[in-house]
């Protein structure tokens, strides 16, 4: 089974027009507020470097506004960085042209979204087959393989239903099945379980760990919830205000929090 590693190197993302000026100020270690006041630019990501190993679940954690959703969208280039490099299997994907990028998205990386992003006018089965239909595979084979992924997430009985007839948890399982049908080495999951209620969420986390044990995908999982991060992550990266605060195993985070920000997270969890 092939797997892929991801390497994010010195990524900066600055939103605004005068990005070059903002980047200079950032290198002079000016604060985000100062940069916003001087250039009108918002610093989204500040010098992020990550080595994401193959075949594991890598969690990126942070509060809303910390830049985690922006960061994960760099990996399949839904967002392009202002500066920096992103390597997948040692190839710089920022140098890809439109066709290469489309190939990357079709064969290498799939994504699961917070509010599912399903097509309301397609059945569960066709939604699950989406990636294969995009590649232009025959409808019958696409549906057959989509059915197999629906079996993996336990939704075979709902193949003919439409997304709006399903509960939130079931819809997200369709989202997961869609990514599984694509059978890519890498799956990006952007707050995939955050919209679900706690019980369903626990179930989904278990299911994900289960699947990972069998499939060994490289999963990049975004969450704002430390419990979730600790439960499913082999490694956890913590983002704060666009900067990387700590990267480590769940144990590292719990026992050796890098700063007060991480400590507060951990303490809140112990208190609860």
């Amino acid at each position, binding site marked *: 089974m092939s797997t892929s590693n991801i390497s994010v190197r010195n990524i900066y993302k600055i939103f605004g027009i005068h990005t070059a000026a903002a980047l200079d100020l950032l290198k002079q270690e000016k604060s985000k507020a100062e940069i916003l006041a001087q250039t009108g630019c918002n610093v989204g990501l500040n010098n992020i470097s990550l080595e994401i190993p193959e075949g594991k679940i890598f969690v990126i954690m942070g509060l809303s506004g910390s830049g985690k959703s922006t960061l994960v969208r760099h990996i399949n280039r839904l967002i392009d960085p202002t500066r920096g490099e992103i390597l997948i299997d040692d190839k710089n994907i920022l140098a890809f042209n439109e066709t290469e990028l*489309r190939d*990357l998205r079709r064969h290498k990386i799939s994504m699961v979204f917070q*509010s599912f*992003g399903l097509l309301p006018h397609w059945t569960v089965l066709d939604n699950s087959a989406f990636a294969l239909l995009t590649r232009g595979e025959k409808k019958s084979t696409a549906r057959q393989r989509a059915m197999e992924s629906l079996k993996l997430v336990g939704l075979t009985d709902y193949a003919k239903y439409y997304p709006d007839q399903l509960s939130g948890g079931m819809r997200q399982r369709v989202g997961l099945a869609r990514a599984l049908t694509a059978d890519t080495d890498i799956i990006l999951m952007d707050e995939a379980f955050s919209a679900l209620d706690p019980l369903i969420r626990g179930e989904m986390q278990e299911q994900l760990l289960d699947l990972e044990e069998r499939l060994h995908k490289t999963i990049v999982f975004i969450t704002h919830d430390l419990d979730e991060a600790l439960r499913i992550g082999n490694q956890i990266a913590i983002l704060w205000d666009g900067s990387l605060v700590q990267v480590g195993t769940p144990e590292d985070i719990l026992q050796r929090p890098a700063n007060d920000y991480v400590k507060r997270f951990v303490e809140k969890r112990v208190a609860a």
Partner: protein
Amino acid sequence: MASEFFIPISFANELNLGIDSIVTNYGDQLHRVSEIMLQYLLVPLEHFLQSIPPWIILILVGLTSYHALRRPGLSVTFVFALYFIGCLGLWEKTIQTLNIMLVSIIICLVIGVPIGILMARTKWLSRLLLPVLDVMQTFPMFVYMLPAVMLFSIGKVPAVMATVIYALPPLIRLTELGINQVDEEAREAAWSFGTTRWQLLIWVQLPLARPSIMAGINQTTMLALAMVVVASMIGARGLGEDILHGLTNLDFGKGAHAGIAVVILAILIDRVTQAYGMNRRQRAQINQGSQA
């Protein structure tokens, strides 16, 4: 005095000369355009529509409206209302009016939907065309009717041209709006799986924009119907003729007959196109609701 305050400006002469020169220089070509439209579009379609026995049209309207609305009572009412138009002796004129409307709407669709899509995709185009659309919608039609007649002579062709200019803007606007309103995450999700722009358009954007686009088609149809009277003023035949005749001869009764026919057509087309703005399942749900 106000007349001293304002610097007098007039470009009426220049415009007149411009139109005149177009007529003298390109008159033949424009005439050919006009002939081609008549020969390949307007006349054959009208012959075809006139050749269909009225009872078949009644049945088709009944079936279509039932398919769209799933309300048998309403479909029967529509069929009787159409039959009533025939009873008033206006069947042939109704078909003539429908013919001009159909051709105008087809042209509007062919032009309007792609422009709406392009505008949703390119901001500068949108910014450029929005004021143009405003002008098209608000510029008094009696003003541009004159050059339309001068360029394409009287009859069906300038009627179609004038109708298209008047009825096109809402379709473009609502197509653009519909595509811009497509759920961002559905679009992003599709894109993240490596769709081409074309796949994204056909699978995601157009279907999700459908209610808005159908509302645009509905608006365009209504505006096209509103143009029938004006069209009759430039020599297009149809229901507008009777209305105009009623107006100029103080024959309220005759005008009212044709007026009623226009109203019946308007309601029929409005209800059917609105219903098709919803998808099959939405319609099914609404009907379950009304039966329960």
